[in-house]
């Protein structure tokens, strides 16, 4: 069974880029959300194996969404996607329960390396 991913980012450009990376590596993109509220709702609905979470988003930040997702499922695997220079936000997200993080700009192999590690593969 392919691992199922939920991609959260407010920029369609980033979602498409991530979708290609995951689809190319045999993951199943179970859903995409463009803000934190939708992310939590979709997480509840889809129960994905993995969430990639943008930090700065409208309506609800990736940090708050992560906090809620981890409360819904303490074993949720949430990988933050942050831009360079957001370290303190990433640290806040980790304290909120994020599993790990990747820093933009990333190459496909960087993303997959982190994801495979956190999924224990």
């Amino acid at each position, binding site marked *: 069974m392919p691992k199922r991913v939920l991609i959260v980012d407010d920029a369609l*450009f980033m979602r498409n880029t991530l979708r290609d990376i995951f689809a190319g590596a045999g993951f199943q993109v179970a859903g995409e959300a463009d803000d934190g509220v939708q992310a939590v709702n979709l997480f509840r609905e889809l129960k994905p194996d993995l969430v990639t979470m943008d930090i700065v988003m409208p309506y609800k930040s990736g940090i708050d969404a992560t906090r809620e997702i981890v409360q819904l499922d303490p074993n949720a695997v949430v990988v933050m996607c942050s831009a360079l220079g957001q370290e303190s936000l990433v640290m806040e997200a980790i304290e909120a329960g994020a599993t790990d993080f990747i820093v933009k700009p990333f190459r496909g192999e960087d993303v997959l390396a982190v994801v495979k590690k956190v999924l224990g593969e």
Partner: protein
Amino acid sequence: MKASSHKYLPLFVAEANEQLEALGSDLVRLEKEDPEPALWDSIFRRVHSVKGSAATLGFTGIVDIAHRAEDLVGRMKALAAKPSRGQIDLLFEASDTLLTEVRRVSADPGAAGPAPPALVAKLSQAAQALPDPSAPAHASHKPLEPAAVAVDPALPRLEISVVLMKSCAAPGARALIVQRKLKALGTLVEMDPLPAQLMSQRGGAAISASLASDKPLDEVRKALAGLPEVESVEVRSAGSARTTSSPPPPAAPAPELAAVMQAAPVIEAEELRPEPTVRVRALALDQLLDQAAEVLHGIARLREAAKRLPENVGGAFEAEVDRLRRTARDLHGRVMNARLTPFSALTERLPRAVRDLSHRLGKEVDLDVQGADVELDRNVIEAMGDPLSHLVRNAIDHGLEDPKTREAAGKPARGKLTLSARRERDKVVVDVADDGAGLDADRLRKKAVATSAMSEEAAAALSENEVFELAFLPGVSTRETATDVSGRGVGLDAVQRAVEALGGTIRIRSTAGKGATFSVELPINVSMANLLLVQVGGELYGIPLHRVLLTTEYDLNARGGEGFEARSLVVLGQLVRAYALAKLFGLPSLLPPGPRPFVVMELDGVLFALSVDRLVGQEEAVLKPLFPPLDRVRGLAGVTVLGNGRPLLVLDPRGIAELAGINEPVRASKGAA
């Protein structure tokens, strides 16, 4: 990832453009209002979003500017003070440069250059002049108060060293992950350096830690080596022999309980959120609309064909076709609705334009946009972009006075420009209102006479309201000196033409000294235009039915007067000028002399008649804009595709009237023959 080959480059450009335009509006608000945290967040988010995507494409120049602007915004937000003019101008400059850079890479991704050093320096300087908000936050990441850690002395001590990869982009965050893993493996006694100390450092790091844990060394090593960006791990036993079982680390709260606790706020937030949307290519919507219209045409033809069926089958068939038609109409309506775009799409960039223009002209203008969420068809929105900008420029350039003049007239120094959209039944009314000087009736009269649009007597006879209509005559609203602001040789006649091409109307209300309002009434949809099909010179043309008063047959030759281009016929007891459509377009008329059909049209209260070769019928069609070079042909309003797939040119009654030389405005031409 090579940008030039990136398939999502157009998407990046579109999104970045959108974010930066909205950023412009945000910055204008920042200048005017006491900024609230939400506004700061919005500004930050837009810059940040552009930065993230640009980084992925390797546009380092854009990333550099965005990164520094973001830093400045972050610090300004934390300061919560009203920003200075200089700071705002700097953000505007950054926003403009970003937009320029995005456009540059849009045209040629290879042309991406480094950030302008002067701008980068200014942004950094401005940021460094402000306190760094993330600095005090470091304290919150200091997790260990050694005195507070109760360590079971019976537990074995492990000495651990973890080396982070050089490529690690956020060692502070990475160290925090390591720290969390260590805490999960036992009791963390010591860690050096602490995550907060590694923040903003690049080029890897070596962390040493002391852990009290009864876990096998190998398990600890594997757990840490399994973390991303960890280059090497060493775990040694540091003595303390006895092995007793330690209590397990505190478990996370039970998921059920957590879910219950969390349920309420989540639902609340859901209500605040707008309906989920997807991005659809505009072209796809155009095609959908075309095809929905096509289906309607097909059904219309089926209904025609059904009339020839024998009665016993015809009835049932027609009933089915009718049912199908209702569904198709419903479908067509839904596609139309999907194309609706909020008025804000037109006004988004205006605050910035108004600010720049008014600064340049030494005027002070407050822009007020109302009804930003009123929706119009995408085509209407697109076609109204230039006309609306023109009206706005016009109001600032000609309507609103400079502060001194205003104060002398007893008005507030700041002028007010109001853009409002409101729905009225199946129309949307867009008002562009200013509280400036109003239109100069005398100047308009003189100008109309000077452009020989009408005689001095006729101009003098016009009522106040009729005079304002003169502004729409070609050449009247264009300034003597073409300023680069609202000159450009484009007058209000072009605005009127654009509005009417959409099936709309434009009116002016003006009070001397109080201001002027341009009121544009637009159809919500580019719904099916009703066309009268006529044949001239072997070709079919469409005439918008809403301009057609009646059709009649007349033999001009019977009245004599051979050789005149424009003659007249009697319609409803009134003499009406008649023109040959074929002659206006330079087409051959295929009809021998004798009686021929005329289409009598009405424009601004003036009747005129066009002779055609044949009246063919009526047709409902979706009007589409003309493509070059046809868009430069006078007298054409658009093109549509007939049910049989053939294109049909649709005439523009106003353009025809101009071609024919019926340029005397309104009532002045009454009775002319």
